[in-house]
């Protein structure tokens, strides 16, 4: 299974592990070997086969320390217990099958199991989902997790059976599944702990096998019911891909957890607190993660046929007021049968800044969730000033028409987004007679300045955040989007020049027509003169044709490209949001790390008075990490969904627009034929 996923992101822990090593004094000797091997192996190649991760890193991480520790076994003081425990586990890793530990382990495992299960029985679900890795699991893999109840209900029985099975037939999982039991078996020996600790450790550990159970369940399930949950082959592959990367994360996470948690082994209180803290969060997480998962899947399927019965058109641009305070008001007419609106047809008048205001509101609310908010057309001071000055020249008329069309497309994009349509602000925008004036949209206002400042800081932080992408899909997509934007930009420039050249051509044709007419008038051969004036007429018409075509070039082709350049910018914004979420999570993770180290130091220094506070802080930060991580998972899922939706929409849009454009070209060519056909007899009539 695992081997089938070819592209899997680098292991998760490598970003944190080194830091941990740098900061921790006591464990430095145990981990120095690790740090080096860790540092240079995983980071460079992002597409490492999972095998590596499954087999090597554990060895890297643990075999070195193992020897270290074996060489100085006397040092197994309280503080040291953590590392041995994990080390031992790996000890078994390296030679899993040859000793009888397996046989040994199973009874032992079974012993603690009741304990373990007794504890979490009160909230079995919370146990399963309460642990951070599981959260991630649930959040990241919502769709895969269609049946978490099943797996959790099975948990106790399946755990034994499944794990046994796993040992038997799944090679890749072997390590995985061997690890936890062994931890269990070995742990008592070095630390010789009270029962308390034992169960504690077990519960800690036990959760992990369960986590691992889920993926395996999933695998089995997927294999069995493969066609059923997969709407398309594309999504299935991405899904399995996700599963693998997910599982991997899990695994690496689990190992990290081991090493991270191990220092806590002797601190029972803290561990005791932990489940209770995470328990309340769990149902929320599971429910919240499950609900979107459903809707996500449904959406993906429905997307192709989702036809909102909502027609929006913007008409009657109208100048309101005079002078520099003048503005253009547009009539926004909506026609719908959706029940969420009060009536079937309604019309409101909106001005440009209202549209911008809508965008501001929407992006404030939704962009941090990873939603793709369609961007409105840019403000154009020059164009608007021209309109304001009130010259009735064609360029200002063109400007107004261009803006009207752009606004219409913008609104249509907003309402065609299923989540944005539900937004009260959108509804208000479409329905409400009077909107409060949007103030922050003025390009030159203080708010505008603040916005610019924000943008600048965003750009800076974007440059400083270096995210090592662990999801190949995103990695590729980000690259794709950037490439595409570049291409579209290039294309847009060219289409613009086509528009200009065609306008020029039209102008030149007009001049030529005039000139030919003059020539015809001074021609003394009657037939030729007639023909020439006919030619002039033909050229005149062609000039009209060119002009029409130029505006078609512009409105159907150039504007389409401009729209998508803007939209791609928004897509990148989504990616940035996701990156920010990731950064937040990483920061929290680092913070947690620091807190833990501080606590370890306190322990070392034997300052029990401050210990409690440190523990509280750790708990707090753990909750934060969990929360941020969940947020990151959520935003990742949303962004992914949004981008898929965007791609679909884009393909459809392009197809439609290009057909329209080609039809316009076709039309002008047909007209051309007509004109020249009419001219041919004239030319032939020259004697």
């Amino acid at each position: 299974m695992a081997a089938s996923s070819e592209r899997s992101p680098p292991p998760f822990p490598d970003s944190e592990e080194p830091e941990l090593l740098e900061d921790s004094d006591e464990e430095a000797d145990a981990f120095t070997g690790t740090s080096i091997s860790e540092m240079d192996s995983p980071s460079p190649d992002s597409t490492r086969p999972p095998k590596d991760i499954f087999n090597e890193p554990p060895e890297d991480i643990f075999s070195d320390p193992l020897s270290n520790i074996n060489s100085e076994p006397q040092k197994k003081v309280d503080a040291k217990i953590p590392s041995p425990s994990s080390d031992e586990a790996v000890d078994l890793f390296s030679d899993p099958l040859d000793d009888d530990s397996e046989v040994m382990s199973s009874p032992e495992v079974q012993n603690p199991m009741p304990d373990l299960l007794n504890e979490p029985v009160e909230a079995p679900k919370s146990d399963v989902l309460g642990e951070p890795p599981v959260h991630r699991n649930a959040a990241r893999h919502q769709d895969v997790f269609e049946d978490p109840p099943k797996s959790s209900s099975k948990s106790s029985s399946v755990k034994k059976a499944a794990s046994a099975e796993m040992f038997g037939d799944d090679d890749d999982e072997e390590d995985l599944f061997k690890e936890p039991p062994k931890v269990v078996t070995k742990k008592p020996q070095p630390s010789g702990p009270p029962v308390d600790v034992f169960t504690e450790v077990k519960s800690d550990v036990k959760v992990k096998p369960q986590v691992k159970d889920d993926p395996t369940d999933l695998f089995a399930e997927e294999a069995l019911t493969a066609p059923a949950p997969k709407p398309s082959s594309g999504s299935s592959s991405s899904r399995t891909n996700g599963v693998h990367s997910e599982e991997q994360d899990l695994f690496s996470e689990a190992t990290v957890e081991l090493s991270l948690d191990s220092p806590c082994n002797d601190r029972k209180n803290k561990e005791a607190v932990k489940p209770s803290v995470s328990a309340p969060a769990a149902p929320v997480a599971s429910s919240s993660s499950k609900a979107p998962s459903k809707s996500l899947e449904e959406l993906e399927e429905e997307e192709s046929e989702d036809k909102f019965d909502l027609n929006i058109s913007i008409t009657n641009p109208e100048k309101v007021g005079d002078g520099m305070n003048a503005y253009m008001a547009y009539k926004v007419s909506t026609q719908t049968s959706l029940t969420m609106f009060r009536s079937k047809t309604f019309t409101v008048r909106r001005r440009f800044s209202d549209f911008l205001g809508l965008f501001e509101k929407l992006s404030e609310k939704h962009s941090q969730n990873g939603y793709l908010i369609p961007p409105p057309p840019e403000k154009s001071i020059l164009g608007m000033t021209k309109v304001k000055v009130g010259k009735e020249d064609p360029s200002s008329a063109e400007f107004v028409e261009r803006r009207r069309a752009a606004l219409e497309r913008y609104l249509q994009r907003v309402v065609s987004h299923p989540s944005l349509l539900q937004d009260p602000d959108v509804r208000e925008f479409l329905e409400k007679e009077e909107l409060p004036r949007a103030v922050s949209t003025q390009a030159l206002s203080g708010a505008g300045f603040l916005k610019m400042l924000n943008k600048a800081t965003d750009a800076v932080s974007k440059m400083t955040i270096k995210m090592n992408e662990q999801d190949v899909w995103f990695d590729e997509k980000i690259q794709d989007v950037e490439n595409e934007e570049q291409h579209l930009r290039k294309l847009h420039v060219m289409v613009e020049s086509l528009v200009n050249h065609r306008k020029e051509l039209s102008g030149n044709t007009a001049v030529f027509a005039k000139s030919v007419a003059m020539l015809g008038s001074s021609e003394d051969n009657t037939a030729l003169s007639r023909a020439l004036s006919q030619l002039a007429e033909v050229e005149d018409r062609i000039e009209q044709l060119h002009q029409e075509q130029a505006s078609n070039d512009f409105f159907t082709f150039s504007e389409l490209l401009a729209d998508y350049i803007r939209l791609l910018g928004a897509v990148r914004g989504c990616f940035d949001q996701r990156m920010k979420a990731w950064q937040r999570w990483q920061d929290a993770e680092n913070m947690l790390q620091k807190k833990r180290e501080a606590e370890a130091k306190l322990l070392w220094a034997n300052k029990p008075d401050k210990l409690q506070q440190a523990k509280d802080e750790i708990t707090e930060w753990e909750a934060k990490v969990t929360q941020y991580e969940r947020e990151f998972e959520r935003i990742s899922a949303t962004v992914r969904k949004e981008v898929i939706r965007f791609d679909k929409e884009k393909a459809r849009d392009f197809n439609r627009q290009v057909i329209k454009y080609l039809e316009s070209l076709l039309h002008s060519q047909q007209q051309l034929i007509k004109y020249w056909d009419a001219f041919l007899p004239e030319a032939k009539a020259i004697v």
Partner: protein
Amino acid sequence: MTSISEDSDKEKVRSVSVDLNNDASLVIDIPDALCERDKVKFTVHTKTTLSSFQKPEFSVPRQHEEFIWLHDTIVETEEYAGLIIPPAPPKPDFEGPREKMHKLGEGESSMTKEEYAKMKQELEAEYLAVFKKTVQVHEVFLQRLSSHPIFRKDRNFQIFLEYDQDLSVRRKNAKEMFGGFFKNMVKSADEVLISGVKEVDEFFEQEKTFLLDYSSKIKDASAKAEKMTRSHKNVADDYNHISGALNSTAADNNTAFKKTISVCVLQKLEDRVASDQELKLTELLRYYTRDIQAAKDLLYRRARALADNENSNKALDKARLKGKDIAQAEENQKQCLQKFDKLSESGKKELTSFKARRVVAFRKNLIEMTELEIKHAKNSVSLLQGSIEILNSN
């Protein structure tokens, strides 16, 4: 170094601007031309039944300068004053394409291989088109001479055709250039001066006003047509670039960019429309701009003769008044009158035939252009329909 050999389809593109009577007794064509750096060597091939030539068929290499020499000698020959002298072919100008080629070479690193190949192909096509056009105008010049009953008997013309050595004409030196420029100045000043001279023949009066008017109009039209074709070419170029960009977009992106193909081909069509338009319409107008200039020159020469005539009349009157040199003045006046009459007569004939020729040429070219336009438009229509169908089926 480029060489083109004319094949059968050359007939189609050739002689677009003038209608020549096909007299089999003297057939001239330029089947081949060789471009060496900035010199173009035309192979002038002659087939004749006329006895004044030594052989029935021969070909000689000629350069542009030799064509100009031929033109100049004809212009300077007094007897031809009453004829419309075919305009000299314009100097071959390969600077445009060559410069572009150079630029392309410089920008080679900045573009992709396909783009480069495409651009190069285009430039080569453009270069070839210019080259063909150059050959064609030279050929037309000779053909017009050969089809003219008087010019074909010209000694210099025959030498030009027959003498298989270098005619060793040199380029005009600076002094001569300046002299030519000065002559032009004098001529135009003279034109203004003698315009006051009263026209005696109504036909010429009419013709003069017509030609003056017509020449300015056609000059204008030709310039405008050139502009139009140029912008048409720009549009075609844009199509080209767009198709290139679309191609690269599509290469990176396997979504719905099927239109690539259609727009790509569209560009080629547009390109052809532009070049045909250029060939048919612009060349026509351009040629007639020069031809009319030639006709105007004829009129000028006639007007000059008229003025001379009048001057000599005045001189005779004066002489009679003073009573001396009467004989000389009379002789002078007689000569002038004779010359003028002769000029008028041949000029009348020439102008009439010129008119007929012009009308026929216009007709032919207009018809051809229209047909081409229709053809291209039809092609685009079918192409567009095809691509729309493809897109719709998606």
